[in-house]
Structure formats: C-alpha cells, structure tokens
C-alpha cells in the first residue's frame, strides 16, 4: 500500500497536528480538498475542530459530499474521523440549530447533558471504558488516558461503540462500523497512546489488522 495518507481539508481543523502525527509514524500526509486526490485515496482521515454547521457547509461548497459517500460507503475505503470528524459521520447534529450530517453511522449528536460539577466543554485527559477486542486499542494499557475537547457528543446504537468515557454521564469515545472508525478524543494530541491509536488505524487501513 502507498505510504500516502489523505487528510481531508475542509478549511476548519487542526490539520497540521494530524499531519505531524502521521508523519511521525512514517507515512506521508497529504492534506487535501481536491477531488482527484480523494478519488485515489486508499484511506482517509477526517480531522476536525469547529462548529458542525460551518463544517457541513464547507463540505458541500467543496462538492465533496457525493464523492465521500461513494468512496466510503460504496468502495469501503478505511476512514478515520476525529472529534468533529466523528460527529460529521452521524446522521444529524443539533449544535447551533439542526444540521444534517453524512449519515455513515446511525446516530445523532447532541450537547453533553448537564450534571452537578460538570463543566462544559469536556476538556482534558480522560480514561476509557473499552470494549473487548477493539483493534484501535491494541497495545495500549487499559488505564491509558486520551485528550478530549468538545461540547457535543454522539448518541448511537451500542453495537458499534468500542469505548466510552465518563464525564457526569457516559460519553461515546470511539466507534467502529466496518470500514468506518472514529474517536471523539484527539489521538494526534494524546501523546504516545494517541500515536498508538493512529498506528492501529494505519495498520487496519493497510489490511494488517
């Protein structure tokens, strides 16, 4: 497999951090919004920092929605969504109004529920309650912590959840459905354990997982 990894640039995210992490793992990051690049991409990372309405609008303006649907849902290329990326994979989000999202996974994104002593956004290092057998967490200690920074979170069917975090309530931290993998936390900012997550995805994308 090619060592090039496509990182989707829709004008929003902390793309440089993801590119730095991918480069650290020996791959060549290609930060791109060009149709031709995405058509040829063997695997794709969808990072994200930002508001979902703005993100979906940009994706539409770049005329990428149909192409992404074709590549991910029909061709089944491995795709990894990070934070806002994960949220964009859901069917809808109510962040700043109702927004239709990509709908690759059944579920919706809503504001983190209020709870006593819980300050929103959920920002910082949290540990995970992991489901057995998830390839994303291979070679990672059970008590490892990951960096979260979000005010909205996914609700979806339990069968695709691979990890949750607790912040007042359980928060879905990672999902896996076929070729679609996503985390609410930022592996590119979770130091060595985060690099291990990205390594596990890159191995999965290369057919080694």
């Amino acid at each position, binding site marked *: 497999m090619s060592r090039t990894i496509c990182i989707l640039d829709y004008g*929003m*995210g*902390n*793309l*440089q*951090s993801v590119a*730095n*992490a991918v480069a*650290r*793992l020996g791959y060549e990051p290609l930060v791109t919004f060009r149709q031709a690049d995405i058509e040829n991409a063997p695997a794709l990372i969808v990072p994200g*920092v*930002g*508001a979902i309405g*703005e993100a979906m609008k940009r994706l539409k303006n770049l005329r990428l929605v149909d192409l992404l649907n074709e590549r991910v849902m029909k061709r089944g290329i491995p795709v990894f969504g990070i934070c*806002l990326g994960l949220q964009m994979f859901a069917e809808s989000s109510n962040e*700043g109004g109702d927004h239709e999202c990509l709908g690759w996974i059944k579920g919706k994104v809503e504001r983190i529920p209020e709870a006593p*002593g819980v*300050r*929103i*956004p*959920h*920002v*910082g*290092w*949290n*540990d995970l309650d992991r489901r057995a057998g998830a390839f994303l967490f291979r070679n990672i200690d059970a008590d*490892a*912590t990951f*960096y*979260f*920074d*979000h*005010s909205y979170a996914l609700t979806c069917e339990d069968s695709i959840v691979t990890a949750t975090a*607790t*912040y007042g309530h359980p928060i879905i931290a990672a999902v896996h459905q076929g070729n679609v993998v996503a985390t609410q936390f*930022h592996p*590119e*900012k*979770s*130091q*060595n*354990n*985060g*690099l*291990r997550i990205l*390594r596990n995805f890159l191995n999965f994308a290369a057919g080694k997982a």
Partner: protein
Amino acid sequence: MLRTRLIACIVVKDGLAVQSIGFERFLPIGSPAILAENLNRWGVDEILLQDISKPRAGESPSITLIRRVAAQCFVPLTAAGGVREVADVRDVVFSGADKVAINTAALDDPALITEAAERFGSQCIVASIDAKPDGRGGYEVFSHAGTRPTGKSPGETARLMERHGAGEILINAIHRDGSKEGYDLNLIRQVTEAVTVPVIACGGVGHPKHFIEGAGVPGVMAVAAANFFAFTEHSVLTAKGYLAQQGVGLRHDTYADYRNHKFDEAGRVAKPSESDLAKLVFRHYPEEVI
C-alpha cells in the same frame, strides 16, 4: 475520570522563551521549540504558548513560531498573543495550535469571541484574563500583556467572555507572576464562581504543592505554570510524582515515573539511597518503537 491538567506555559518575547517576573522583568531561557520538545517528552498535559511581544507591539501572531512549536508538540497546544481578528484565529489553528487564547482584542470587542466560536467551536476559544489587586480589596483586569488598566473586575470580565462563547477561562495573576508564592486563590475563586466553563489557574507557582492548592478550587480544571517547568530536568514528571504522593492523581503515560521517589522540602527529587542506585545499574529501558 477527567484528570486535572498540568499546563506548562512557554512565554516568548522577541522569539526567545523567557522567564517573566511581574510582567516587567524578563530573563532569557532559550529556544521555544526545544523547551516544547522537552515538555512534551516529560509528559506535560498541555502547552500554552504565550507570545508577549505581539500584543505590546499590536502585531499579528507569529505563525513561524507556532509551527515550530507545534511540530514538537503531541499534546494540546494553546497559542496566545496578538490575536485580533477571526483571520488570526484561523492562521493560528492552521499552524498547528488546537486552541487559541484571546485577551486584549476580546476586551476591546467581545464579539470577536462569538465570531471565533461560531467558526471553530467554543471548545477552541480560551478567554485569557490578566489581573492584579486594585488597592481597594478587589482586582482589576489589565490588557496589552498586563500593561493597560481596564477598570473591570475579573469576575464580570469572565462572565462576559463566557456569555460571548468562550470555552475556557485562563486567569493569570500579574502580581504573582514569577513570585514563587503560589496562586492567588481569591482571584481564582472570583473567576470560578462567576462562570460555568472550565477555568485554568496561572501565576505564582514555585513549589509543586501550589498546584494542589490551585486544583483544590472547585471549577479549576487545569493548573498552569511557566518558570517552574523551565529550569529543572524532568520538571513535569517530578511535579506529577509529588502530586500523586499527595493524593492528586494526574495523567502518567511516560516511562520515567517519580511516584515512588522521595522528595525534599522544596519539592525536588531527593537523592535515592546508595542501594537503590546500585539496583539501577542493571535496569535497561529500550527505546519504544510505535
């Protein structure tokens, strides 16, 4: 469980990392990128890169500086200094920063916080507030890297910033900067009580016990220090080891671990016994390949 974050500030003046004392006197430390590399290796939970020359000169953030530091930083990076408009926020985020702290420009026009949060989300926008005692028993907020009085209190300023969409509030005590006296807990409490978003405490740490005091204020989700981390080897790890022994559990994801070491009164790692040192001779730590 969400861990309290230990944040290291890299204060930059004219391209050089400096030790800042009272926002007035500055001693050179060295390259910001090398400091970031060390802090990252020592398992810091977040890095706050504060360029103090920019707001004073009214200049835009230094993209080169942020890029260099971001390349060394696999933990969250918050950049501060010189952000005046949404275009600056975009430039800073695109250079590799995960969050942007805004101070002077948000005091001039809080709508900037709203605009930036609508585009990048509240979780990306930190409102940074510098304050010192007003001489009448309260506190006053200063802009332009602590050089201009605003006549506003930290509590009302924090509330204003939260209402406009700030995802976190960073409160820095100017009078404690470089003092090693510990956080101004009253000042911090005024801010945590005024808002419901997470608060970052900063200013005055000279002993690891000060982190415990800061983290003990309800609503403080992160404790920050600058000088404290810059002058000793493994500073982050030793501080975390000390805190763990005092019952404050932080993130420990690195090989080196001081949780079982002895500390002296200054909070420094005490010399191990000769018998412990002798055991180390046969210990081999291979470099990990991820």
